[in-house]
């Protein structure tokens, strides 16, 4: 599963947000992802892909922004 797929699944499981409502421009705060839920989402990402996000990462505002951070990390690890 890619980053956007994982984000969609998380939002469905934890917040009941339908996958069809989640696109790159979706603002995380508007679908109930506050700072705590974002931490949990990043935790799940780290677990799933066996990676560690930087502690001082700037919290992304949108689903696309978050996916870009995740994809970038995976790309660097694979590279």
């Amino acid at each position, binding site marked *: 599963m890619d980053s956007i797929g994982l984000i969609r699944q998380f939002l469905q499981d*934890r*917040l*009941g947000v339908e996958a069809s409502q989640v696109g790159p421009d979706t603002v995380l705060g508007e679908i*109930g992802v506050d700072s*705590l*839920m974002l*931490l*949990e989402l990043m*935790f799940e990402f780290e677990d799933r892909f066996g990676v560690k996000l930087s502690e001082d990462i700037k919290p992304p505002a949108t689903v696309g922004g978050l996916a870009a951070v995740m994809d970038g990390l995976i790309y660097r690890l694979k590279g």
Partner: protein
Amino acid sequence: MVRRRVAITGLGLVSPFGGDLADFFTRLIAGESAVRHLATDDRPRPLSLPFVQCPAFDPERALGKPLASMMDRFAQLGMAAAFAAWDDAGLPRQADTPRDDWGCMWGTALGGTLAYEKGYRELWQNGRDRLSPLAVILGMNNAANAHISIQLGLGGDSVSHTVACASSAVAIGEAFRRVRSGEATVMLTGGSDVPQAYGVARAWEALRVLAPGTAETASAACRPFAADRRGLVLGEGGAALVLEAWDHAVHRGATILGEIVGYGSSCDHSHLVRPDAAGQVRALRAALADGGLAPNDIGYVNAHGTATAEGDPVEVAALQGAFGDHAPHLAVSATKSLHGHLLGAAGAIEAIVAVLALRHGAIPATGQLAGNLDPACAGVDHVVESREGQVLQAALSNSFAFGGSNAVLAFRRPAS
């Protein structure tokens, strides 16, 4: 000192029977037991004991997925009970005017123990090296009152009380004092607890105070005041009351379900687990005096009555000490026999039973007591068959905790 009257305008619970408040009381009056046999697949040794759960409780349906996912089960049960009480009071969940002097006082003995236990299992049993970022906010003991205050926009006190089995009785008493003194207009109060964490259940088992039982015998396992009593039955649950300044309730046209008039607390200051009648008498007398009640005003006492060998006769001795000549006429029952011992939520669910008994003129019986009274527990009017059509003016609810902390709440029937 200001002493305002305090109305009870909302009651709510998560019932182990799966229905609503009316269904819960109807089943108690019918003498129905919610105790079932619990069998788990825990390692190293499964749990196998009589227990009370709320199997029909679906946190996602009751609270919605986003809110439920931010809570441990004790907070979920508390939030659901609080919403039920709030709706019962006819108050909007969304504040239409500032609620800066409205608050929440909550009782829990165990708090988020399940969340912590899950963390220990992850680390020590499953070999994980880190925990979910939500672990802290799931486990913290004030999670229930924090969520309640956020959801209902309560800007005043938001406090959790941990006083073992008296936790929610103390919370209710302290909430009552806030409203009576004029510090608060409305207080949401009550308690919730979930004792089926493996370590918690095994710890209670080690104390040798849990009633044994099988799938066939579990429903009658808890037998307060009975000659063959074997101990208590743990249970999960949540129960809540809305306490409101009398004039505020009248002004908004609320239905007044009852009046809370007194609160007495004391400490045995003698032993951690062996109760002392003298300490309990002080709490009983304090509650009567606080409520301006004479012994013969009291038509019903919901006893602490856990069905332990030591506790039950001491409680009867305390009632005799506090009520004197009226004791033989004092109707007493221990409804833990039917809904189990909810630990930090016990005081709240039993306060609700006392309020409903006054409101409906009906007293639920102590289960399994008919023809089975321990002579050492004689001396009060034990209710062994439910009584309906009673004219009751006032009632007490007793909560006597490990640690020697005692709390007694006094209620009056609302004037017709």
